[in-house]
């Protein structure tokens, strides 16, 4: 029997944007997207959190080629702008056959082609179609097409749940199955490697310059060292899934899908509890109570 702890995940508001990356085939679209989303696991040190939201068919992209949709989250508008511009310039524009378009609309503009066009050194061409401006920047495999602006929207970061168990094989297997299902939910991303994080953090540290440090309550090796450990003798491993999303409902759905997958799986051996990370309700206004989700 897997226990659902009577606790909640605590999430906070973020700034978000969606980009559509296309390429000659899905393989190269994914490569560009993965490059963009590399080193974008946590705002603690990456500047943004990003991930692939879904794959898109030829009918779903502006240029009729296969593509992927990615979501990017950051704590401030300025940081979001900086991260999108730098990553698009260095990771998408450099990727063969790629093109990039905005995947959402709002009044808050984020310069994309509007800034990247200068790479064209005066040979760039502007095209205005359907009330949108596109830039054609000459590159060595032809042209890099880039929409003038991406757009900022509201997002929520930090939805999460923890899976506690007896051994790493059992916990990792359960979490992997959950991630696979959660990846099917639209409007959310799981920004950590493979959607899973092992180094859960708490706010602050005994060292002055650190804004985050290890979540000692869930570290098995600190059981007995600290009196605040939340792990019993049989719990030797904890893994976390962090979810960023566009709205509360989709984060709830993703959490529900992930937890249900673990609860309903035939393979439950070695899994003891599902919990969630929070800061006592002091960090963010979005509280996801685990018992309410199931």
């Amino acid at each position, binding site marked *: 029997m897997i226990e659902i702890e009577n606790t909640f995940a605590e999430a906070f508001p973020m700034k978000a944007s969606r980009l559509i990356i296309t390429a000659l085939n899905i393989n190269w679209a994914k490569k560009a997207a993965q490059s963009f989303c590399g080193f974008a696991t946590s705002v603690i040190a990456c500047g943004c959190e990003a991930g692939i939201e879904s794959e898109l068919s030829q009918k779903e992209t502006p240029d009729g080629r296969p593509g992927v949709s990615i979501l990017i989250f950051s704590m401030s508008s300025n940081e979001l702008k900086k991260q999108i511009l730098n990553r698009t310039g260095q990771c998408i524009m450099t990727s063969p056959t790629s093109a990039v378009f905005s995947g959402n609309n709002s009044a808050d503009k984020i310069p994309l082609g509007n800034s990247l066009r200068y790479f064209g050194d005066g040979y760039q061409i502007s*095209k205005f179609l359907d009330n949108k401006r596109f830039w054609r920047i000459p590159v060595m495999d032809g042209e890099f097409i880039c929409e003038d602006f991406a757009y900022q929207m509201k997002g929520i970061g930090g939805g999460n749940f923890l899976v506690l168990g007896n051994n790493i094989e059992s916990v990792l297997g359960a979490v992997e199955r959950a991630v696979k299902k959660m990846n099917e939910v639209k409007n959310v991303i799981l920004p950590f490697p493979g959607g899973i994080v092992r180094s859960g953090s708490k706010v602050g540290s005994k060292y002055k310059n650190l804004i985050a440090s290890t979540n000692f309550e869930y570290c098995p090796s600190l059981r007995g060292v600290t009196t605040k450990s939340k792990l019993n003798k049989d719990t030797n491993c904890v893994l976390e899934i962090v979810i960023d999303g566009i709205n509360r409902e989709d984060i709830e759905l993703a959490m529900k899908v992930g937890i249900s997958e673990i609860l309903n799986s035939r393979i439950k051996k070695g899994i003891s509890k599902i919990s969630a990370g929070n800061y006592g309700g002091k960090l963010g206004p979005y509280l996801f109570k685990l018992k309410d989700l199931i």
Partner: protein
Amino acid sequence: MKKIILKAKINFESELNLKNLSKINFEEKIISKINILYDNKEFKLQELFKIQVQKSDKNELIISGTNRNCDYLGWKWKKGTLRIKSDVGSFLGVQMINGKIIAEGSCEHHVGSGMTGGKIFLKSNAYDFVGSPLPGSKIGMNGGLIVINGKAGNFLGLQMRRGVIFVGQDVGNNCCNNMIAGTVILKKSFGDQLGLGMKRGSIILFRKKIKSANFVDSGESQSLFLSLLNNYFLKVLSFKPFSNKDKFIRFVGDIKMDGMGEIFVKKN
């Protein structure tokens, strides 16, 4: 939402200025207050047209019985659909801002001159200066879409700055002269001096090869912009002007003006 139907009571033998028809606000009852100029005399709209107002799921103005003397229809048009069931005079959709104009007959000169947005669909032909500047103005079409199923006359896209023009049949001389930017698609043949003085912009051709010394062959092009354009047409008009797999030769010019315009010619 309203459908307003106007039927001409007389045959217009002198110039009829329909500029004031664009004052029709589908939300308010101001139709009866609109005055129009016929033969330089002011008339109430109902004196020259039979007016019918019906409830509808979209705002639409339908006008029939017009002829080549009826100018300035859709002037600064910005809301709803204007459907013209007959021929129409010059300056159709001039300085249009938004909305849609559908003309089932032919049009005279200056269709869409100075328009900045919206869509004009002509099921038949148009004469000269489509998407060109108004007399005395320096900049032509500045946004929006013009689709002509029939033929178009001379000076199409003159000094055009933005937007898209599609012509299904032949086009006259001096097409896209001094073009600043924008996109023109010509499905059939075109006259002399295409793209003369072109600074930027794109022309897409299907029939005739370029022989002008003003343009240089830049080789085969598989610009992604063409796919983007194709998808735009599919979304707006439910057809693609060409296949995404079609190959094009790209010409660049007008080199005598240091221009960076481009002409795509479909490879057979």
